């Protein structure tokens, strides 16, 4: 039955039901209306004209029951008709659009040191993430997911020694002038997927690398902390990669063993020259569903990365005598290029029990440069080069949600040997925060952090405070 017809019948039935109800006339608000006992008898009762009041009441009740039944039936039919064809749920093309956004304030400050003027030292308002997901499922086996992030970046960000100013005169405005900010759209991921079943799916495209907890949870509504752990800031494993991935999961009673394996361009996202950018890695995670929810994961990555520099060789054609110019790839780091291989291995643990949540990750990264192709330091000593090195990262978050709405948490983050500074230091970030959940889809997140370095020869200690209003839609 078509929804329009159902709607018409529903309206008719509702009207009939309203007329048939003995007290229907009394539902009309009427100030100073006469008592019910004094009201004239309903017209329907006159038409039915039963022999006695009892019989008349019985007839009306019967009629009422029939109308009620018909109304319920029509309501059910209308609700069903409003649904897509059940088989169409997964058999027909469809596109879902959903996302999340966060806006708020933040303050990041250094007491002293070479970078203090780069870091904002007064609180400011910030447009955080405006992420939209375009989720297409043209058939049961096929899926495409594109996640974009809108924002004001790169406006105001540092590009070398100057801040980016992307304001431009908006000649398309009705007044022919006025300024607008040309802001960016960041691609978070874009992949195409074919799935055999839950045990095997293949993806190709721009992947959000499956490692640890943070990069998988990925979004402000899902992450407990606003502040990123150092392994995420430093990209101990590249956050995004272009390539192919196989993934799947095997449920075993209350447990599930999930895997990811990928082959990519590695840290160099775009392949435009003859380098074979080998990047490969994977993740295994064992999850438990139940009162105690556990996820124990391990991630690994191997890849190479490089930066090429072309040198222009100007010469003379021996035959024609004309000037020539040839571009040759530099083999020396002194020209600014570099080449290295790296590997990273990490483990992670998630625990959820009633209101308690724990998230923890640890990772080690090793970088080996090719001889003569070490990377130049960028900040404090550009003449120096990065040595081959290990770095270690770890963080833990302890959160407890109570009274449905409140989730205070503690966050501790550790990393060492940032090669731009020195190899014999370490840094610890102590942080506390509070998440307020208005609903599952609206929350306010607040956090304060104090990052300290040992030794702190470069005066890098910093403080951080932020608040973000987050909405899922």
């Amino acid at each position, binding site marked *: 039955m078509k929804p329009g017809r159902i709607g018409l019948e529903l309206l008719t039935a509702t009207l009939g039901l309203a007329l048939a109800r003995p007290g229907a006339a009394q539902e009309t608000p009427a100030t100073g209306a006469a008592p019910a006992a004094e009201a004239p008898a309903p017209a329907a009762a006159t038409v039915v004209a039963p022999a006695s009041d009892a019989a008349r009441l019985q007839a009306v009740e019967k009629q009422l029951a029939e109308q009620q039944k018909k109304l319920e039936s029509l309501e*059910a039919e209308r*609700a*069903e008709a409003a*649904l897509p064809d*059940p*088989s169409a*749920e*997964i058999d027909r093309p469809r596109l*879902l659009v*959903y996302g*999340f956004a966060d806006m708020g304030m933040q*303050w990041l*400050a250094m*007491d*002293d040191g070479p970078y203090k003027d780069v870091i904002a*030292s*007064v*609180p400011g308002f910030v447009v955080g993430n405006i992420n939209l*997901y375009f*989720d297409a499922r043209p058939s*049961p086996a096929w899926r495409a*997911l594109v*996640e974009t992030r809108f924002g004001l970046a790169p406006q105001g960000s540092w590009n070398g020694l100057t801040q980016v100013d992307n304001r431009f005169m908006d000649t398309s405005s009705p007044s022919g002038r006025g300024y607008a900010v040309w802001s960016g759209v960041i691609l978070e*991921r874009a992949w195409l997927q074919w799935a055999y*079943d*839950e045990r095997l799916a293949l993806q190709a495209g721009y992947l959000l690398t499956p490692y640890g907890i943070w990069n*998988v*949870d*990925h*979004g402000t*509504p*899902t992450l407990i902390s606003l502040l990123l752990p150092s392994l995420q800031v430093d990209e101990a494993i590249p956050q995004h990669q272009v390539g192919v991935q196989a993934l799947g*999961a095997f*449920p075993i009673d*209350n447990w*599930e063993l999930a895997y990811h394996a990928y082959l990519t361009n590695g840290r160099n996202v775009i392949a435009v020259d003859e380098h074979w950018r080998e990047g490969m890695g994977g993740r295994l995670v064992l999850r438990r*569903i*139940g009162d105690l*929810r556990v996820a124990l994961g391990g991630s690994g990555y191997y890849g190479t990365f490089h930066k090429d520099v072309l040198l222009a060789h100007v010469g003379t054609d021996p035959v024609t005598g004309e000037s020539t110019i040839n571009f040759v790839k530099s083999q020396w780091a002194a020209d600014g290029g570099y080449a290295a291989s790296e590997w990273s291995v990490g483990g992670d643990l998630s625990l959820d029990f009633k209101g308690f949540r724990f998230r923890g990750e640890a990772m080690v990264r090793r970088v080996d440069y090719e001889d003569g192709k070490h990377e130049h330091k960028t900040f404090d000593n550009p003449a120096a080069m990065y040595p081959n090195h290990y770095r270690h990262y770890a963080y833990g978050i302890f959160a407890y*949600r*109570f*009274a*449905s*709405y*409140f989730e205070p948490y503690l966050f501790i983050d550790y990393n060492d040997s940032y090669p731009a500074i020195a190899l014999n230091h370490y840094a610890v970030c102590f942080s506390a925060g509070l998440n*307020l959940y208005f*609903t*599952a*889809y609206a929350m306010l997140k*607040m956090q*304060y952090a104090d990052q*300290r*370095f040992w*030794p*702190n*020869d470069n*005066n890098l*200690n910093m403080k951080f*405070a932020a608040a973000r209003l987050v909405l*899922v839609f």
Partner: protein
Amino acid sequence: MGTRTGAGSVGGNQGRRVWLAAAVRIGAAAVVVAALVAFPGSPGPSAQTSVRLAVIANPAVPVKTQSASELAGIFSRATRTWKDGSAIRPLNLQPGSSERIAFDRAVLHLDPDQSAQFWVDRLVRGEEPAPKAITKADIVLRLVASLAGGIGYIPEDKVDDKVRVLAFIRDGKVVTP
């Protein structure tokens, strides 16, 4: 340990930061107090365990019963195909309904807040979304009866012979027929 703690800061900035830090703390405290006043507190323990449900499936599905863990796999979307490779089409009831609360607690071990967060997390991660939520048990019954691979749950007293009962949920536990 050789750590500086801001002793070398410029005086004017130091004063401003102290005030700023105080303002941030006061603001945070105000938000907490306001939230405590505005929110009535968590929903108390409910009587959802008294809800008796039947987990029903299309008669053509290749299973006779389903255990609690198998149902958890299906309704968390971890398991998406029946044993014969055909697609599982799970149907939920509306969040907040007594049946949905009882089902989520018994099968997924999730309270309403946790259930909502669970599905938000999955969306943000780019994983499978929650099974479609249907407004009425009567409609679930009719859809499951007509939908190949369909599975859902309804109050026990609404079951008819057009669907197969795979499990019952009684006293907060999954019981096989």
